[in-house]
C-alpha cells in the first residue's frame, strides 16, 4: 500500500498544529505559550508548502505566503518577548 504523495507532510502539519494548540491552552508559563504558538504557526506553514507542492510543478504563491508569514511570526514573537520582559520587571 502506498500513500498519496504529501500525506506524511499533511499528517506532520496536523500534528504540529495540535501540539501547538494544546501547549497554548495548557502551559502556564508565558514563554511556553509563545513557543507553542510558534509551533502551531509552523504547522500551518507546512500545510501551505505541502499544498503548493502537489502536482508536477511547484506553485510559487504558497512559498511567497510562507516567507511573509515567517517575517510576521518573527515580529509577533519579538513583541511577545518584549512584553514578557516588561511584565517580569513589574512583578510585585
Amino acid at each position, binding site marked *: 500500500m502506498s500513500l498519496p504523495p504529501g500525506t506524511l507532510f499533511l499528517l506532520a502539519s496536523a500534528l504540529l*498544529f495540535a501540539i*501547538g*494548540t494544546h501547549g*497554548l491552552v495548557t502551559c502556564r508559563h*508565558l514563554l511556553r*505559550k*509563545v513557543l507553542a*504558538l510558534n509551533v*502551531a*504557526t509552523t504547522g*500551518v506553514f507546512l*500545510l*501551505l508548502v505541502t*499544498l503548493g507542492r*502537489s502536482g508536477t510543478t511547484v*506553485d*510559487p*504563491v*504558497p512559498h*511567497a*505566503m510562507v516567507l*511573509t*508569514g515567517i517575517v*510576521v511570526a518573527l*515580529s*509577533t514573537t519579538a*513583541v*511577545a518577548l518584549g*512584553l*514578557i520582559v*516588561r*511584565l517580569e520587571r*513589574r*512583578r*510585585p
Partner: protein
Amino acid sequence: MDLPSTAVLVVVLVTLPLAAATLLFASGRQPRTLTLAAALLLTVAALALGWNVHIEGVSVHRIGGWAAPLGIHWQVTPSGTVMLLATALVGLAGAVYGAGYFLHRAGPEGRMARVFMPLWLFAWGGLNALFVAADLFNLYVALEVMTLASVALVALSARRMALQAAMRYLLAGLFGSVIYLLGVALLYGQYGVLDFDALATMLDPDDPGSRAGAVALTVGLLAKAAIFPLHFWLPGAHGRAEPPVSALLSGLVVAAAFYLMLRLWFGPLAGMLNFGAGTLLGVLGAGALLWGGVLALLQRRLKMLVAYSTVSQFGFAMLVFPLAVSGNRAPVLAGGTLLLANHALAKAALFLAAGTLVRASGSERIGQLVGFSGRARWAWLAVILASAALIGLPPTLGFSAKWLLLQAAVTEGAWWWLAVMLGGTLLTFAYLGRLLELALLDAAPGPSPPPVLTPALLAPALLLALLACVTGLWAFDFELDGKALARLEPGS
C-alpha cells in the same frame, strides 16, 4: 478643482500612516504639529475618497500593474469607504485628544506621549489596508499589522494590570491569526486562488474542505472581534488601556475584524450562508448581547462598563448573519456597515468622554464621578449623545442602522431575531441609563482644586457624538444607495 484620483488617494491612505509612523519612531522626537498634520491629511484624503466613491462607485486597483495571483488587488467598495471615513474621523479625534491628554513631556507620561502617535499611525495604516484589501492573504498581513500596533498601544499604560491585559490580548489575537491563516491555507489548497472575486465564482458550498476553511477563517475572526465566547480578552484590554487608546481599539480595531466577517460572508463565502450557519452566528451574537449587557449592568468602574458594552454591541452586529440567510441581502449589509460606523463614532466618543470624566473626578468608580457642572458638563453631554446613538434613538446613525435590520427581520418574518434585537436595545438602554442615573443624581464634588479640562479633552468626544447623531439624517440616502451597493459589492 479636480480631486486626486481614487488610485492616488488609496495609496496615500495606506502608505502615509506607515511612512509617517516609521519616521516619527526613528526620529525619536515627536513634534505635535507634525503628527496632527499627518492625521489631518489622512482625514482629508479619506473624505476626498468618500466623495470619489459617491461619484464613481466601486473601483479596483492593481498595485504596480501586476495581475492576480502574483499581483495584489485593492478594491474600494462603498462599505469599505464608510469604514475608511469612520476610521479617519475617529483617528483624528483620538490624535487631538491624545495630544491634550498626555500632558507632561518628561517621565512615563512623556514616553507615552512620544510613542502614542507613531503606534496609532501604524494601526491606522493597517486598518486602511484592511478596508481596501480584496484577497485573503493581504488581509492576514493587514490584520497582523493592526493587532501588533494595538497590543503595543494597550501596553502603553505601564501598569501591571494593563500589561497583563495586553499579553492576553496578544495571545488571543495571534491564535486568531493562526486559525485564520489555516483557513487561508485550506481554501488556497482547494482552489489555488486568494482573490475575493475569483474565490466567489469558484467556491463550492458543499465541499467539506471549503467548509473547514470557512469555519477556520470565521473562528479566527471571531477571536479578533471578541465575539462571545471568545470575548474574554476585550474588557481587560479596553478597560485598562489609556482612554485615547481604548477609544481607538473599541471603536475601530474590533470593528475592522468584524467588517472582515461581513466582507467574507457577504462576498466569497455568500454561498455558504445557509440557515444553519446563519443561525449559529446569530446565537453567538445573542449570547454576546446578553452576556456583555448584563456584565455592563454590574460594573462599578466607568471604563469597564463601556468595555463590556462593546462586547454587547458586537453581539448585536452578529444578528446581520441570520437576517441575511434568505431575502434581500443588500439592506442587511448596509445596516451592518452603518451599525459598525455608528458604533465607531459613538463608542470612541464614550471612551474619550469617560477618560475626561475620570480625570475630572480623580476616580474611576461610577458613584464618585463629578456631576453635570463646570466644564465636565461638556463631557456628560457627549456621553448622553453617544448613548442615544448606541441605543438607536432617532435620528441617530444607530437608528438608521437598526431600522434597516428591523425592516429586514419584519419582511422575512424573523420574529425571534426581532425579539433579540429589541431585547438588546432595552439592555443597552438599561446599562447606559443606570450610568447616567447613578452619576448625575448622586454626583460627587470631585477633587479640589478641580483638574483643568482643556478643549482638547472635551471637543473631540463631543464632535464624534454629534456626528453619530446627525449623520443618521443622511443615512437613509445610503439605504437607497444600498440597492446600488448590492450590485457593486462583489459576490452579493
